[in-house]
């Protein structure tokens, strides 16, 4: 599989999937900065824990909860799809 095939939005992943952050899309002011401050930066390891009612994922050792719009803007290179 090429890297392109393995690229998905965080919102599209099922619980249990894991991978690494490729980038965060900036369609809301301040979003990139806030996520970066919490450790969501390119290369960070993420594991999706829950998808409803909000997306909860583990980034490094931090549990983060985000609304769907934010999860859609985080691009992940999937390593392990559940």
């Amino acid at each position, binding site marked *: 599989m090429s890297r392109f095939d393995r690229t998905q939005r965080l919102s599209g992943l099922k619980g249990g999937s894991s991978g690494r952050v490729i980038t965060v899309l900036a369609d809301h002011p301040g979003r990139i900065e806030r996520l970066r401050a919490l450790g969501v930066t*390119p290369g960070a390891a993420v594991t999706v824990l829950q998808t409803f*009612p909000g997306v909860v994922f583990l980034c490094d050792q931090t549990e983060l*909860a985000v609304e769907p719009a934010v999860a859609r803007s985080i691009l992940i290179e999937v390593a392990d799809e559940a």
Partner: protein
Amino acid sequence: MSCPQVAVVREVSNPLLRLRARPRRIALAGNPNVGKSVVFGRLTGSYAVVANYPGTTVAVTEGRALVEGEVCDLLDTPGVNAVEGALSEDEQVTRRILSSDGADVIVQVIDARNLRRGLMLTSQLAAFQKPMVLVLNMMDEARLHGVSLDVQGLRARLGVPVIETVATDGQGIADLRSALREAAVPALAFEGGRDHARWAHDHALAFRSIRPHSAARLQARLSQVLRTPATGLPVLAGVLYVMYLAVGVFGAQTLVELLEDGLFQGYIHPAAVRAADLILPWRIARDFFVGDYGLVTMGLTYAIAIVLPVVSTFFIAFGFLEDSGYLPRLAIFSDRIFRFMGLNGKAVLPMVLGLGCDTMATMTTRILGTPKERLIAVLLLSLGVPCSAQLATILGILGGVSFGALMTLFLVVLGQMFLVGFLAARALPGERSEFILELPPLRLPQIGNVLRKTLLRVRWYLGEAVPLFLAGTALLFILDRTGGLAWVTHVTEPVIQGWLGLPASAAGVFIMGFLRRDYGAAGLFAMAQTGQLSGVQAVVALTVMTLFVPCVAHLLMIVKEQGARVALSILAVVTLIALGTGAGLNATLRLLDVTFR
């Protein structure tokens, strides 16, 4: 590189106490929720209110610490995620302190599990070119998660002391004290042009190893149970029920009975009456203390016997929830609902705190992202969130009427909050911030910490509320004696009796309600106890009281947070909504011939 100032001190051979003309200023800095305030408490020996969610340390706390016989000023700065780039208000405050003369030494506290995030901040802090010490806190949590850190390697790379601590137990604090003398400007300070995120990522990889660890699995499993709707919502119902038992039953019934009937009616009132008879020859003066609107018989009794037990039990229960890390998980459930009202899930924190005290909750709306969100949250708090004493009164009175009566009130109040929130979200200018929230690790609350925190909050409550209770009673006494109360009752009669269908004496209760919301609620409780309210009247009166104007302390806090103009607008809007809703409810219930029997 070592700081020259520090080197001089080291030559002096161990004196008992050293004082400088200007004490050395040590600033604690770090990401939110890493245990800065606990470290602060350990170093100064005093206690700052510490909670398990971001935003508790809103202002800068200052204290004195003895470091190796030297008296130093210690500053606890607000938790920050960055000190460069686009900064929040808190981050700007912290940056100002750290970059100026405000700090001679920077002690950065890092959550050992989150080395990468911590180092991202280290990389930015280094640019201030000040002596630093790194504290890797919560080492017990880190070990539990199978995280091991190469402390020696990190120390060598950064050129600053790196100390491992478990601040809640006091582990490593002695090491930190001695390391403060060796604080050094990080080598990093003179290496320009790096990408902080990149640098932190690489260094976290180099100095940290993580093995999956079975002990962490229980914690992860528990966290999952709490945040998944299928299991989390039943748990939430259970938590609310236990809180009701603790606050509504034990606090508002058992303790209140013990204090009011036992202590006050049994001992204090008779003693006060005897004392007044003995000392005060004038009837009016006696009445001022022990009459119907007496300072002792009414003011002190309401404050100490009715409200204090409720507030104390609420703060104990809230302290447990806060320290366990449970509250932020509620934000996941409530995010969708709050988004509808122009807020996001984070707003659940001030709203839940509002169930204890709206004044305090108004202060914590600062944790919300945008001015618009803060305004909506302040408005909703003053409109619909009943404080603990009020809630206990509602449960006490309506519990005795019928379950339907209770549900009617909650549905009307919640409906109004949704409606007002929905309209405010669309009418007010500005933006909502996106929901991005860190879920802190679940911890077993330490009873000592919870009790200390409760004590601080109760002391705050007593200092703030009791004088207002007494002032309120005095005002009522004067109004009663000068005929003012009769006049107000007469003037408001068309509204109170006509629109709301309540006894005219309810006017006095609403005035009290403005002095302290809970005070008014206590007044309604007394009216219900003596059988002055029918079922419908109780529902209408309590609904109006819940929606009614915030109390004086709450109003002053709104003025402080949002300015006088906004505060007056909120006051006007809320009053109109409260009276309108009460009148509508009264008309509807009577039209449908509901009696709540």
